[in-house]
């Protein structure tokens, strides 16, 4: 009996993985990123230990492909044209027009586009962490009450609040264009103290949440859900200020790619008359992401240079626009309606107690 209870507890703590516990914990959960952080922390310049030749390729295969993945997912998701007509059909042209306007008036509009992308980015990372945490909870039979979901959301957002309040040219400092904050040392002191308060609230809040779920739901939140939150917090609180954020970008991208490929394969294998195996769909999707990522980041900016715009605004603002487009599309493609076939990936079929 005791052995059985222990086995159940272990299974609950481990959670229901998508591929394999090691794969899920290391890549989707962000466990590998924490190992790398421990290696990079003593010497942040180790963040760039890849050679000058290999780093761009690694970034294309991870980050570049991940930005393109939301677009590939959008256009390969069954029923997307019908359910998301604006996003699928009008958004590309709208994005092109807005991007061209920003490049044309780069001096005035460019900094705002960049600040928008840099402000939205930590929110996107936090939302991804929240989504993955909830997904693993539901897959593992740990149903969350509305109250616990809200608390989980707030805990996930803490790294975003940290960057929003402290990041230069981001969030508060972007809104404060007149430099009011910089002229007031007392406000800066308050914001510095606020960082530590946020960190403390995050740690205490996460522990409280985990305990609360176990007490009221009867089973614990899987550790991988907690790991996802911790990894995201480490990326923003520790890596970013130390110029080592390239690692966070790579690991966030790997996390995203793993999940999106899984969902794509599920969709494709569920199609009637489909003839290919899992490997084919994985390689097809990832290959399309890499190609599109290459086109977006390596070829597209040159079109603006050819049109007579400068290289700085062409490269930087195309990058910012691709990011923003990715964030925007991502907000829609992961909304799983009740009729969505992918709900079986996350649902257990039971309803959460209040």
């Amino acid at each position, binding site marked *: 009996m005791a052995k059985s209870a222990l086995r159940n507890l272990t299974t609950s703590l481990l959670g229901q993985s998508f591929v394999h516990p090691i794969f899920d914990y290391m890549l989707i959960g962000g466990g590998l990123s924490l190992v790398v952080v421990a290696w990079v922390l003593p010497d942040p310049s180790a963040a760039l230990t890849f050679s000058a030749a290999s*780093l761009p390729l690694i970034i294309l295969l991870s980050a570049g492909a991940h930005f393109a993945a939301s677009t590939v997912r959008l256009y390969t998701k069954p029923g997307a044209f019908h359910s998301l007509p604006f996003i699928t*059909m009008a958004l590309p042209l709208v994005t092109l027009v807005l991007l061209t306007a920003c490049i044309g008036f780069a001096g005035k509009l*460019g900094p705002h586009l960049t600040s928008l992308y840099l402000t939205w980015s930590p929110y996107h990372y936090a939302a991804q962490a929240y989504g993955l945490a909830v997904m693993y909870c539901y897959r593992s039979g740990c149903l969350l009450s509305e109250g616990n979901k809200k608390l989980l959301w707030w805990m996930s957002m803490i790294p975003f609040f940290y960057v929003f309040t402290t990041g230069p040219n981001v969030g508060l400092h972007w809104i404060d264009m007149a430099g009011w904050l910089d002229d007031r040392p007392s406000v800066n002191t308050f914001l510095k103290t606020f960082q530590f308060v946020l960190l403390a609230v995050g740690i205490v809040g996460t522990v409280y949440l985990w305990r609360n779920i176990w007490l009221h739901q009867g089973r614990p939140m899987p550790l991988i859900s907690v790991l996802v939150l911790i990894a995201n917090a480490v990326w923003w609180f520790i890596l970013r200020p130390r*110029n080592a954020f390239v690692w966070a970008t790579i690991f966030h991208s790997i996390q995203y790619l793993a999940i999106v490929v899984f969902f794509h394969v599920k969709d494709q294998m569920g199609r009637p008359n489909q003839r290919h195996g899992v490997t084919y769909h994985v390689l097809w999707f990832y290959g399309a992401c890499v190609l599109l990522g290459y086109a977006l980041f390596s070829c*597209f900016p040159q*079109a603006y*240079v050819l049109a007579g715009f400068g290289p700085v605004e062409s490269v*930087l603002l195309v990058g910012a626009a691709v990011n923003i487009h990715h964030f925007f599309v991502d907000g829609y493609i992961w909304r799983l309606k009740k009729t969505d076939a992918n709900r079986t990936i996350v649902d257990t079929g039971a309803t959460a107690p209040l």
Partner: protein
Amino acid sequence: MHQKSLKDCLYKAAFVVGIVIFFLAFALGFCDSIRVHKHIPPVGVTYRTGIESLKEQRKDDDLASQLRLALDLDLGRPDKFNLHYELGMLLDSQGKPMEAIHHLHRCVQINSDHIGALNHLAWALATCPDPQLHPSLRSQAVELARRASKRLANKNPGVLDTLAAAHAAVGQYELAVTTAESALKLAAKQQSNALAEEIRTRLQLYKESKPFYRRPKPFGKDRPNGASSNQ
């Protein structure tokens, strides 16, 4: 019903236009990249290639404009030292010493140990021909040049030349003469004949109790030791 079909038509038209423009842009960008790089576009394009191209073509005004824009747009890049440094040197060569001083000053704020930044800022402050430059700023040149020279164990003739100019700028002509003579000896020992000739010219000014104020020189023609030449 009519409104719905109009909306559908508009969406479809927007989609077609958007996709066509994108593929056209991709194709043109791909082909132009081959023309520029002489091979398929490299993975991980940065704006550096474009900046280097402007330098090669000596389009200094466009280059300055692009460097300023990079400072405004590359917000995700925490270390803007190189941008400020390049822009400071370029503006100095374009005869815009006050703007150059602003950017070189930012360099020293970012990295107070960088010898090139210390030396170039000291030189710019000491030899700035603009009479509106505040005397307290000229006196900073002495401290900056001294710091740079100390880091090179007082064995770099170009940096000693800067220190001599800084001394002269604040009226310390005796110190300027002795420092310039040390610089001259080192330059001769290292067989830097062009530098030695310049120091000799300036030494004459210091002996006449005159400071050295310079005219700008073309960007990119710095001596390896970092001190700028004039005339």
